[in-house]
């Protein structure tokens, strides 16, 4: 785990992420400016850093209702604004980027942040980036596999010679600047089903698994498939970390959490998927067996420890702003994480 800058004996890592959500606030019916949203995210990263959280991540989504398309630029501001917290993408849509530029950006971020940068490479669950940036979504799978291969090669070799279908060949190329200690942690972003988890295992890449809701046990299949694939490819499962992600909202008690968050979740789903979130399903979500991270701090702790038993993962990433959650609530969430959730989770998962 050391090459991924994770020490499991320090307990389960807790990170926050945003994909730059920019929907309107259902309580006010209005939408803040993109400028304000971006500044608030940088502000949130400072709070998370001061509160002792482990990771802060920003992802890209190239369409309406999002603001952090240029996520690496924002991560640069966050690198400057923070001191200790790790900085990652959540995710970088590698399929529509040049791996060389991605590596240059994150190596630079690593230098700005004094060795805190990580790449989470994904294919994008929304396909807006493809037509916008000149890629054919029919190459969805091949684009990503080829580019991830190249990105991993850039991370291990000093002089890179490479040839592929979607990018000009490299001949003995040096990628500059290099990250602080020569390597970056590079994760593969994986959706629910096991197919992509298996690919991460075959390549021996850490897995960031989305567990956006429904029974947590449904995702165990992907965790197992990943570890099996690692073993088949000759990797040590103890050396490769797993992270999970989910939508997150907590308040002093579960009823407040449900009441405050439901309109955001419902509106966000309506905007992004064309259908709201059923109340019946949402009412079930506070059960400790459901993966959606919603509830009182105590319920969140129970969910996290249950999942820790289930998956044996090393990091949990919370999406803190889905559906236009305003900054004062984000700040309140960070406070509850820092004062109530994190101490309990660390206490039960720290091994020394």
């Amino acid at each position, binding site marked *: 785990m050391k090459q991924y800058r994770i020490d499991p004996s320090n307990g389960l890592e807790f990170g926050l992420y945003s994909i730059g959500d920019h929907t309107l606030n259902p309580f006010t019916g209005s939408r803040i400016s993109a400028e304000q949203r971006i500044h608030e995210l940088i502000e949130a990263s400072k709070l998370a850093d001061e509160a002792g959280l482990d990771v802060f991540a920003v992802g890209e989504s190239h369409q309406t209702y999002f603001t952090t398309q240029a996520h690496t630029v924002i991560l640069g501001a966050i690198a400057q604004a923070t001191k200790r917290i790790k900085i990652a993408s959540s995710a970088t849509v590698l399929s529509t980027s040049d791996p060389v530029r991605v590596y240059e950006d994150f190596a630079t971020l690593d230098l700005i942040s004094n060795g805190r940068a990580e790449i989470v490479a994904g294919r994008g669950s929304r*396909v807006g980036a493809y037509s916008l940036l000149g890629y054919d979504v029919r190459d969805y799978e091949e684009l990503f596999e080829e580019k991830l291969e190249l990105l991993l090669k850039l991370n291990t070799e000093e002089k890179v010679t490479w040839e592929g279908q979607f990018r000009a060949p490299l001949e003995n190329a040096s990628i500059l600047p290099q990250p602080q200690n020569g390597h970056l942690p590079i994760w593969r972003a994986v959706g629910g089903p096991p197919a992509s988890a298996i690919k991460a295992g075959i390549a021996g890449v850490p897995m960031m698994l989305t567990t956006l809701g429904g029974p947590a046990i449904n995702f165990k299949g992907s965790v197992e498939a990943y570890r099996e694939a690692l073993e088949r490819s000759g990797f040590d499962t103890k050396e490769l970390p797993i992270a999970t992600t989910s939508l997150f909202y907590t308040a002093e008690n579960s*009823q407040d959490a*449900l009441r405050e968050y439901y309109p955001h979740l419902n509106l966000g789903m309506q905007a992004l998927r*064309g*259908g709201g979130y*059923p109340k019946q399903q*949402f009412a079930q979500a506070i059960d400790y067996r459901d993966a959606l991270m919603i509830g009182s701090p105590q319920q969140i702790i129970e969910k996290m420890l249950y999942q820790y038993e289930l998956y044996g993962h090393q990091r949990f990433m919370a999406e803190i702003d889905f559906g236009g959650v305003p900054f004062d609530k984000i700040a309140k969430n960070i406070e509850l994480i820092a004062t109530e959730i994190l101490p309990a989770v660390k206490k039960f998962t720290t091994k020394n």
Partner: protein
Amino acid sequence: MKIVGLSGSKVGSKTRTAMNYTFKSMSEKYPDAELTLIDLAEFDVQFSDGRNYWEYEGDTKYVSETIMAADAIIIGTPVFQASIPGTLKNIFDLLPVNAFRDKVISMLVTAGTPKHYLMVEQQLKPILAYMKAQIVQTYVFIEEKDFHRKEITNDDVLFRIERLVEDTVVLTDTYKLIRKAKEAEYDF
């Protein structure tokens, strides 16, 4: 209450004729209902290419958004090769998996032979159930011999159409009440 009629084929006139009867009965019996009839023969709907339904343009966008905004949908379909027409299947393919959650769907079918009677049970209902529709279980099955020159001549079919109209509205109202009462319990 928004009710959309969806006549699912570009071929022939019998399904459309049956839909006209159905909508006439509906407008007489429920003058307050907001009725929209979509006859796929009159629209140029493109094949689903994986986009979100609201990201299409023109007829494709209009048809899919109108269906998504409905409280109830009455689907009229002929039988093609022992199944529904591709035009109708394409409408389902354009929509998200849970598109019919909280919607009531009823059906009428036109067919050349009684041998197709179970097509709805085997082909259409599984799709609607997968997409979370509240299905009006009894459908109207109309054979070629029930038509004469764009009129329905079988009284049994006419009575059945009236019952289908009533069942569609009654179930839509009922489910709405049940849902409201249940959601009021949640307190969020």
